[in-house]
């Protein structure tokens, strides 16, 4: 048979196949109409069939719900554009997700002990929780820190504390995530300097610093400086890390706090990616090649109660990011298109009533995170709505991940829910919802004007209020809170307490530091930093000098604030 004859035969076969497919869909449409008619009189439960985010959920999904685009453009293979099926080609068959429990309390010594305990128990990465003074750039002996030192995380006021925090933990082998934003550039420099003391060069460091200031203004509220200087610090870090710490993630663009503050799944998705686009544009505006820094941008999403919607959210996030980076920002390196993410189960879904039920909530959420293809995961402890978690509660949370990884078989195959009519429809819907919200952000004049006008904050607060009303009206059931209550809601549960002696000890540490360091070096490096803030030089080398001279967190903050000023939030409710 000639090539031409072959093509004619193939063409005919193709036509026949299309005709068969069309006939099949027609038949399905007819059968679905019949089904709808036949079930029309069947009573349904008296419940609101909407997702946690208020999305209408149909009783049945079928091939008719899937869009017209083909498999390749929408799903691709894992590790390939647009990464819907996963950021890596072999996913959990090569390497399980990193089990990374967020921990920190009291002083650096106590937290160091907890880290050794977690590593001994099979945890594979560390995640630092800082106390509120540190998050806000205050030293443990500053008057504004009164009553808060070491209470909600660990107090780190200088390089000396950072050295203690990682004592006996080789920073070239353990990847460390640090949840810090306003003063991220300062804590990052403490970390790099602590690694130096261990003989570890920055180029060997793996890990992540959250460093996402936009979502601080929108939701979490731990800021130091106004948006413009804060964004400059972040781009300074992109620039410095791409040259000196190429394996380190200088940002974790975070939806977690946006969601916890009340956003819906769609808002979390859109606001987070919208912030990500802003960071990319800021980096490019500095003159950086997008492919020089985009591969190290990482993400952090919340995994809430609505099982399938959360899985779809993670799949949609990867697809939207890949398309935007390739098609709008012109990134050529596939690494720039690949969205990698950490996930955490939703603290806001945990209840103080019947707190043991939280173990079950966390387990479902953890499974959704893994089915959504996360790269690392924190599972919350059951007692978090009561106080800081105890060792027992943390162990159960970690064991929840280990059962998921080693007993359920869930990680055996890649993206097992692909092709589910429901999950694919939800993925498409969330993508469309995010696109619509990107347009609304544009209408606000962009991310920073939207923050300054309080637009994001209001969108989030409205969603929070809607959810509160749903729960109070009984439209949404929370087991053990507004239904299935039996008088056993209050449970005696051990809680971890941080006493005032922690603050005393941190004050003593600070006093010793202040008297033992080279005061001239402190003054000199701080003055050089203030000058660099004014002159527009990259700030990382200057802050590193301050760190090495044992300048404290607040001293460094203050040296920058002289030029940058402080941020004032728009207040409303």
């Amino acid at each position, binding site marked *: 048979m000639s090539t031409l004859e072959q093509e004619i035969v193939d063409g005919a076969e193709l036509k026949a196949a299309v005709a068969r497919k069309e006939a099949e869909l027609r038949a399905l449409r007819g059968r679905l109409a019949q089904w709808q008619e036949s079930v029309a009189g069947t009573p349904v439960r008296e419940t609101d069939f909407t997702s946690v985010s208020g999305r209408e959920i149909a009783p049945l999904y079928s091939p008719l719900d899937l869009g017209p685009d083909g498999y390749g453009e929408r799903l691709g293979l894992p590790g390939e554009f647009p990464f819907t099926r996963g950021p890596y080609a072999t996913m959990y068959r090569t390497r399980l997700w990193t089990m990374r429990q967020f921990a920190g309390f009291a002083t650096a010594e106590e937290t160091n002990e907890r880290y050794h305990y977690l590593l001994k128990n099979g945890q594979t990465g560390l995640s630092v929780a800082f106390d509120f003074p540190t998050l806000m750039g205050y030293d443990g002996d500053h008057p504004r820190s009164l009553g808060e030192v070491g209470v909600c995380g660990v107090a780190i006021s200088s390089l000396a504390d950072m050295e203690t925090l990682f004592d006996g933990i080789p920073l070239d082998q353990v990847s460390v995530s640090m949840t810090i934003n306003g003063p991220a550039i300062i804590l990052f420099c403490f970390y790099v300097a602590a690694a130096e003391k261990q003989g570890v060069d920055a180029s060997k460091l793996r890990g992540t610093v959250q460093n996402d200031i936009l979502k601080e203004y929108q939701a979490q*509220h731990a800021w130091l400086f106004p948006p413009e200087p804060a964004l400059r610090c972040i781009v300074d870090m992109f620039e410095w890390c791409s040259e000196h710490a190429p394996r380190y993630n200088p940002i974790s663009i975070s939806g977690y706090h946006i969601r916890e*503050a009340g956003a819906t799944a769609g808002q979390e998705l859109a606001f987070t990616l919208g912030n990500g686009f802003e960071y990319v544009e800021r980096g490019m505006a500095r003159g950086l090649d997008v492919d020089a820094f985009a591969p190290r941008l990482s993400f952090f999403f919340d995994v809430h109660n609505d099982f399938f919607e959360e899985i779809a959210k993670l799949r949609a996030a990867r697809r939207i990011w890949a398309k935007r980076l390739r098609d709008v920002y012109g990134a050529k390196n596939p690494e720039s298109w690949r969205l990698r993410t950490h996930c955490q189960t939703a603290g806001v879904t945990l*209840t103080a009533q019947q707190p043991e039920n939280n173990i079950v909530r966390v387990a479902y959420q953890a499974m959704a995170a893994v089915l959504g293809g996360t790269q690392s995961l924190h599972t919350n402890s059951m007692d978090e709505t009561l106080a800081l978690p105890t060792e027992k509660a943390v162990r159960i949370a970690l064991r929840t991940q280990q059962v998921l990884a080693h007993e359920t078989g869930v990680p055996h195959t890649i993206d097992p829910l692909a092709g589910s009519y429901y999950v694919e429809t939800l993925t498409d819907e969330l993508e469309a919802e995010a696109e619509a919200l990107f347009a609304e952000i544009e209408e606000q004049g962009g991310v920073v004007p939207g923050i300054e006008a309080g637009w994001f904050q209001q969108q989030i607060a409205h969603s929070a209020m809607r959810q*509160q009303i749903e729960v*109070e009206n009984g439209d949404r059931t929370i087991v053990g809170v507004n239904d299935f209550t039996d008088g056993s809601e209050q449970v005696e549960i051990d809680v971890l307490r941080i006493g005032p002696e922690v603050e005393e000890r941190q004050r003593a540490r600070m006093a010793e530091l202040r008297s033992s360091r080279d005061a001239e070096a402190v003054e000199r490096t701080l003055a050089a930093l203030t000058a660099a803030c004014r002159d527009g030089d990259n700030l990382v080398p200057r802050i590193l000098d301050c760190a090495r001279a044992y300048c404290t967190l607040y001293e460094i903050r203050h040296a920058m604030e002289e030029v940058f000023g402080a941020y004032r939030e728009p*207040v409303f*409710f």
Partner: protein
Amino acid sequence: MTDDRKIRVLVAKPGLDGHDRGAKVIASAFRDAGFEVIYTGLHQTPEMIVSAAVQEDVDVVAMSILSGAHMTLFPRVRALLAEAGADDVLLTGGGIIPEEDVAALEQQGVGKLFGPGTPTTEAVAYIREWFAQRGERV
């Protein structure tokens, strides 16, 4: 005090804690219940809160604390209110506060403190009740 005035509430976020979901939800619920509501915004010192309470002549200060610093912040605001001659102001609030601490703070003249999962209606009813018992306002 006159009976025709609405109950005035200062919703306050003391300390460095940025978790304001609860504060904003409760402020909206108080407003919807007919109270006059002033919200301080974040990161307030006890001095700033008391000064706002006095300036705005409020009847209630409702503080939201999720940072664990409640044993420092509630007594401090109570003491500063007394110093400012605003002893009659009801100091209440909510957040992540263990039971024993709630009891200890009550001993020190702090009103009812509400934990996670409390319906907003319960806090509204508590404030109404508190004034009703004193024969003031509605």
